[in-house]
């Protein structure tokens, strides 16, 4: 799917594909276009051709980071709204998940902590048994324990619903490495990298003239980013080689000097 949207000071132009049975990560800094992409996908805004994407919202579950149902409502009330809004809302699953995560259904949302609210939003989205889940920074603002609970929730859901497509956007990427199958890196409205196999990436430190740098992509200072880790592991036992994590990839692809 192609997403194109021009604002005054910003242009989003990228291609992204959501595949069934795949968890896709969209990683980018604040303002890189992640939320705009979501809005375009959902048909909340129109693209440059004045088209609004038509999606069947009955089959999409969305979690926004900065938005929820009205905070004066409590969970029981929201459950009612959902029951009347969606044909396939799973009440039993919803109740079960509420008790599993010890969320009080009678408390109004404004009394929920950030972590509880995030978990609730994901529970709502997964109770729709939707074919597609769009999660906009679902772990942002959560402590470590809550983050892991949220990620485990998603893993369980994928195990039970194997044909779902999930798109998760984040600017804190460390959570996503152990979860996502495909990674899109977005910067200033453009996809700068799309990868499935992060394990082929590494950071090379202390490379002198004897090292063949033809597989190095970027460098910051004297450290190089490469996507041919095994080549360097096998040929340069004395070179310091570190696994490159998502955050490293972001940093080097955006700020690094091209080699």
């Amino acid at each position: 799917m192609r997403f194109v949207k021009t604002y005054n000071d910003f242009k989003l132009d990228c291609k992204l594909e959501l595949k069934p049975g795949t968890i896709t990560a969209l990683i980018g800094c604040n303002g890189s276009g992640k939320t705009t992409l979501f809005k375009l996908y959902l048909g909340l805004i129109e693209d440059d051709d004045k088209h609004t994407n038509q999606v069947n919202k009955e089959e999409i579950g969305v979690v926004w980071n900065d938005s929820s149902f009205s905070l004066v409502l409590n969970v029981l009330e929201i459950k009612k709204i959902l029951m009347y809004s969606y044909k396939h809302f799973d009440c039993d699953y919803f109740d079960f998940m509420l008790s599993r995560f010890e969320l009080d259904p009678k408390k109004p949302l404004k009394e929920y902590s950030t972590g509880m609210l995030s978990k609730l939003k994901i529970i709502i989205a997964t109770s729709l048994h939707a074919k597609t889940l769009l999660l906009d920074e679902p772990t942002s603002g959560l402590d470590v324990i809550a983050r892991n609970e949220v990620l485990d929730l998603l893993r369980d859901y994928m195990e039970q619903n194997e044909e779902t497509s999930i798109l998760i956007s984040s600017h804190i990427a460390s959570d996503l490495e152990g979860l996502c199958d495909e990674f899109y890196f977005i910067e200033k409205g453009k996809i700068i990298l799309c990868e499935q196999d992060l394990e082929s990436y590494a950071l090379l430190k202390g490379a002198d003239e004897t090292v063949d740098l033809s597989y190095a992509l970027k460098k910051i200072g004297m450290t190089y980013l490469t996507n041919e880790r095994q080549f360097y592991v096998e040929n340069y036992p004395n070179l310091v080689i570190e696994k490159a994590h998502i955050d490293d990839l972001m940093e080097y692809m955006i700020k690094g000097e091209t080699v």
Partner: protein
Amino acid sequence: MKGLLVKDFLLMMKSKKVILFMLFIGIIGGINDISFATGYILMVLAILSLSTISYDEANHGLKTLFTLPISKSDYVKEKYLFSLMITGIGFVFVTILGCFSKSGFMETLIILSTALLLLALSLPFQLKEGNEKGRIVLFVVVFGCTFLFAFLNQFIPKFFESIESVLNTLDPIMFSVSLLITSFVLYFFSMMISIRVYKNRVLD
């Protein structure tokens, strides 16, 4: 749309105490003058039904709302339907409350029409710009009309007398019923305008 109606009723119930208090004032005031009760209660309910829009828009709430399977025009239609329903409930309440005198009922119909016209005028603004501007429009219209009438009354005393005499020649039933029908029609047109307007609304 059912989900939206459920939501708005639940939201209004949050203001339960305020509503009951208002009804209480209305009833007390209404002991002396039934038209006060009618006007007051209907206006209060009409305005309260608009408050659901501010709940929707607070804290980027529209982003979540529109992930529900509704379109922009569904949202607008539901607001009109909901406001109509609330005003209708108020109308029934006031009618039961009032002594069932014929003239009282006519007045109730006229006030109902006024409430509908008020909603018809302010809903498009509320939906377009968000609650703040909508409220301003509401006040401007209400006070504007009050000042207008006071002004006209001051400087053209015959103005109202002549209107009254014209009105008195009309059959009161015909008049109030046709006024009501007209306001329904205008209400419907207002909805069409709002749907148009909301299409361009940025959801944040």
